[in-house]
């Protein structure tokens, strides 16, 4: 029989009779924030532990549902009153998993400003939620690549190729907070693109699909 310690709110926190991942570790893993020895220890435990597999599946589900629901609620066209700071985000996923969000403030979405749309490119897991994310065409665009799980370098090259594999943009940058970014002052024309991250030795490290729509 399995015995769980339950908090007042009924959430299983940790277990009295064995080593299990904490809630915090599960959340961090689910959000790709574990690295190094911490990640190794967690994954080794996960390979054996059914309880933590089930807990992680629940955590992944909650995360995805919150993102799905919040995306809809926070759409500028949705007339929902929020106590939150007025930030509007557009989000979606591309092919293997691209999470996109617009980082500009809500009022700026309605103003014809030249402020770039900010898109965070992340890998996600599984086939769940493979909705195409779309960047706005013809508008300045800042692409932020999440470098989680990638080999660390002092600089990365960011390249965008069109659907035919022809390069349309390239820049290099140093990572900050495990992210590297590039800004396209004139944005991209509508179409299908791939965003690639390279090491200084021109080794392809990661590739994301990107759709740009009018």
């Amino acid at each position, binding site marked *: 029989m399995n015995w769980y310690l339950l908090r007042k*709110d009924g*959430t299983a926190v*940790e277990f009295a009779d064995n080593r299990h991942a904490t809630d915090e570790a599960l959340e961090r893993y689910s959000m790709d924030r574990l690295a190094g020895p911490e990640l190794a220890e967690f*994954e080794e435990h996960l*390979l*054996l532990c*059914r309880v933590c597999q089930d807990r992680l599946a629940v955590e992944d589900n909650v995360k995805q549902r919150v993102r799905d*629901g919040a995306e809809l609620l926070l759409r500028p066209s949705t007339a929902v009153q929020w106590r939150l700071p007025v930030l509007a985000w557009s989000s979606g996923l591309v092919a293997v998993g691209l999470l996109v969000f617009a980082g500009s403030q809500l009022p700026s979405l309605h103003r014809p400003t030249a402020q770039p749309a900010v898109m965070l490119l992340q890998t996600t897991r599984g086939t769940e939620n493979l909705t195409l994310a779309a960047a706005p065409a013809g508008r300045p665009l800042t692409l932020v690549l999440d470098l989680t799980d990638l080999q660390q370098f002092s600089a990365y090259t960011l390249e965008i190729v069109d*659907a035919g594999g022809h390069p349309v943009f390239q820049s290099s940058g140093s990572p900050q907070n495990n992210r590297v970014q590039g800004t396209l002052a004139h944005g991209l024309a509508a179409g299908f693109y791939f965003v690639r991250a390279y090491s200084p030795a021109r080794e392809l490290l990661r590739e994301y699909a990107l759709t740009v729509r009018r």
Partner: protein
Amino acid sequence: MTANGIAEDTKDRPACAQPGWAELVEKIRLNEPAGLEELYRVFSRGVRFYLCRQLGPQDLDDRVHDTFIIVAQAIQRGELREPERLMGYVRTIVRRQVAAQIEDNVLSRRQQFDLDWGLAVKDTASNPEQAAIRHENQQLAARVLKSIAPRDREILIRFYLWEQPADQICTEMGLTDTQFRLLKSRAKARFGELGRKKVTKRLVPFK
């Protein structure tokens, strides 16, 4: 609690009790069916879960099978020098499988683009049925999110969507670390509970 987020308590639990790795490795090395069976029994669910989470359900059985063949053959070739590191070794093999699959996807996509007979870009958009299901799920999630307390909703959105660190959320919402943990946990429980209720309601339309 260890620094690595695994709760510290050493008593065995059936759910993740670790077998004697040295004995198991020796059985596999000698190609004893019992050893292979035990390896599969101990790791199959975890490997399946990991691969499915990373790569999705497509070809899952084949991938799990390939993983076990690689692990067993490596052990039989004597490549696992420290039997007590079996768990770490399996993890390494599984991660390599995932990396290889992603690399394959990138390569095959690139090769498709190299074809000269017209541009064939796979339409990765959902089909109408998938899109409708996704839309419905999204609306359900939005309704659930809207129905929970504003402070709970704010915590969930800040944490999961905007991925704000706990420090920032605490500062901006005027919470202590403990309050934040409790509120977040309560919000998740509430969100899950209401979601289940709404799904159940939808499944039982007649009374």
